């Protein structure tokens, strides 16, 4: 019932938003939907919801973890979006990079797609059947594409096209993976025609290993594309940098997690089938590769939204590495997923504030943020320290846990590479972050400092507070949830 509510709230309000007239009312609807969704998601922690639709929709610890993160982020994003949409000019306005005139997509479409996006992501977290999971993940792509193309100008269009094409191809491969899995299951009566995750896990021992492996590879490449693992990440920096910051926040903080969840589901089955290692070594490889590729583009990156995007690639790598190491590494990875989502979404929201004032995405043009936009500046620098894994913020603990897992399992080479890449990325990130925040303010602002509306500051500030909290104190309930989730992955 609760699960149905979780799905219905965004879907219905999305439809409503699409046909509703009057921006003010629509914005209210958006916030209300977000609050309701968050409320229900929070309720699931108190009353564990029952399975519905014949077990197709169920909220297991893994799903619950990602659902809560998604819902929290969406609430922050919705609040931010209200202020953002207020700031956006309706008339055609000049694009600050090419100087061409452009208009925005209709706000109704934007809001509606935002809500559908939430619905799709919710479906990802609650669906217990691979087919349904696939449908949901593809749906997230389709719902988010128009969001990226909110600003109707060249670059965002290009980004949208690449996003659509690359992700669709990837997801198509994942579909093949679905079929392969079905074939793998069709060997034995115990699992023939099994669609539910639990059934597959129960009869995992009867699965056809060759097909299972092939399926895993297809899922890995397919969902990995969506998750942004190098070298499949190519769409990610474009989409994240061209989408409105509020959308980038959701893409990076919630969408990538959904794809990650897709891979985790397959890993669940493989682990049950005794094939855990087969995937894990691949995960370690992809993890390190993603971190390395991210490092290449983070060092000396000139566009701060692309910087954040590549940092997402890096952190997806960290997640895969953690899962690949298994054991406490899995715990660390899940914890890191939470930390990264909060921190990265916060950063993207702040990036929106900076972009709005400086009208440039180039780190060279932005300086003295601490003086021009004190609140945003503080959040920005704090976010950079958080995302690069400095105490007292959450990511430090999770990255530390993963490092410990690597060393405890005797994977010293992996640990060394991991540390080296983290250090390199720290240098790259922090260089850009400091260049932007420090320094004297440009003359145009010495007279009148631009205002910082509360709706632009409060949401990221709240997220920052959460990240800080997770760095100093991990609530037992969350810890237990993550432990259970990690337990599901064997």
């Amino acid at each position, binding site marked *: 019932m609760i699960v149905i509510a979780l799905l219905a709230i965004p879907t219905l309000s999305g439809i409503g938003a699409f046909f509703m007239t009057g921006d003010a009312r629509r914005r209210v609807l958006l916030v209300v939907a977000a609050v309701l969704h968050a409320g229900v998601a929070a309720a699931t922690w108190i009353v564990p919801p029952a399975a519905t639709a014949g077990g197709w929709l169920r909220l297991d610890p893994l799903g619950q973890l990602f659902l809560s993160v998604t819902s929290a982020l969406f609430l922050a994003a919705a609040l931010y979006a209200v202020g953002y949409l207020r700031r956006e000019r309706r008339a055609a306005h000049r694009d600050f990079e090419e100087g061409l005139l452009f208009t925005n997509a209709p706000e109704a479409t934007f809001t509606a797609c935002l809500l559908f996006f939430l619905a799709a992501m919710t479906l990802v977290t609650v669906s217990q059947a691979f*087919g*349904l999971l696939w449908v949901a993940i593809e749906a997230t792509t389709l719902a988010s594409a128009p969001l990226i*193309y909110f600003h109707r100008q060249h670059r965002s269009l290009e980004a949208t*096209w690449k996003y659509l094409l690359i992700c669709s191809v990837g997801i198509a491969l994942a*579909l093949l993976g679905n079929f392969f899995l079905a*074939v793998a299951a*069709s060997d034995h009566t115990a699992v023939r025609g099994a669609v539910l995750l639990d059934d597959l896990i129960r009869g995992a021992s009867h699965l056809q290993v060759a*097909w299972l492996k092939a399926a895993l590879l297809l899922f890995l490449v397919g969902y990995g594309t969506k998750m942004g693992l190098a070298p499949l990440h190519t769409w990610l920096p474009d989409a994240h940098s061209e989408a409105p910051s509020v959308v980038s926040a959701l893409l990076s903080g919630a969408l990538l997690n959904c794809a990650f969840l897709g891979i985790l589901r397959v890993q669940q089955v493989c682990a049950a089938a005794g094939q855990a290692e087969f995937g894990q070594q691949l995960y370690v490889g992809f993890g390190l590769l993603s971190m390395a590729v991210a490092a290449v583009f983070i060092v000396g990156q000139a566009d701060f939204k692309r910087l954040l995007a590549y940092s997402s690639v890096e952190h997806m790598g960290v997640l895969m590495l953690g899962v690949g190491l298994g054991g406490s590494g899995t715990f660390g990875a899940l914890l890191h997923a939470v930390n990264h989502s909060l921190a990265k979404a916060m950063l993207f929201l702040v990036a929106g504030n900076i972009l709005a004032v400086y009208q440039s995405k180039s780190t060279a043009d932005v300086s003295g943020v601490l003086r021009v936009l004190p609140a945003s500046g503080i959040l920005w620098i704090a976010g950079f320290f958080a995302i690069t894994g400095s105490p007292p913020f959450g990511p430090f603990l999770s990255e530390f846990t993963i490092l410990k897992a690597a060393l405890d399992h005797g994977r010293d080479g992996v640990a060394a590479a991991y540390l080296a890449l983290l250090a390199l990325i720290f240098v790259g990130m922090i260089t850009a972050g400091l260049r932007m925040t420090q320094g004297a303010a440009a003359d145009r602002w010495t007279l009148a400092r631009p205002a910082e509306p509360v709706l632009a500051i409060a949401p990221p500030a709240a997220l920052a507070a959460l990240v800080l909290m997770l760095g100093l104190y991990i609530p037992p309930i969350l810890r237990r949830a993550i432990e259970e989730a990690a337990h599901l992955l064997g």
Partner: protein
Amino acid sequence: MDPALVFLALTSVLLLGSSRLTRCIRLVAFQGVLLAALTIAAHANEITLRVVMLAALILALKGAAFPWLLSRVLRGAEVRREIEPMVSYMLSMAAGTFGLVLSFWLSARLPLPTLPTSTLVVPVALFTTLVGLFLIVSRRTALMQVLAYLVLENGIYTFGVAVVEGMPMIVELGILLDVFVAVFVMGIAIFHINREFDHIDADQLTMLRDWTG
């Protein structure tokens, strides 16, 4: 069902060699028809309403709706033929044959547990998939890439309908719906691209990059 599969493979090869976009659209449409036929043939032993509905739906979408949509887009953008592709048509053919070999090799690695209705299914499906991928990589116009995506989809779907039984209806429908929306959105995107850039040449969309060499 072998003939259908053979035709499928042939159409894929033809696609590799054809430059006229209208022709490509027709070929893809034909693949849709074949797919519908396959759906029937695969469940020849017990034709249920479900199967018929599915086949009809596939026919409607892949055989009619998509081609119609895409040819509209094509009319919007004044391009008749594919611009000179990255890989020449001859070479594409050659690559196609290599893909065929590869797909047979792979399918040999993956013995089907239950005896399939036809031994050609897996290789042809894989082959079509590979052709789809190859076309996306080697062709320039956005429209051609959508077509290629459809070919890819067809290949995968061939595998689905021919080998996997007992895939629940809801999932099948969901998949079809998704593919439909995907193609639809891509169509819109191409429309916009054509409006914004006055061309649908995807490889000129390289404003977003980190390499300024």
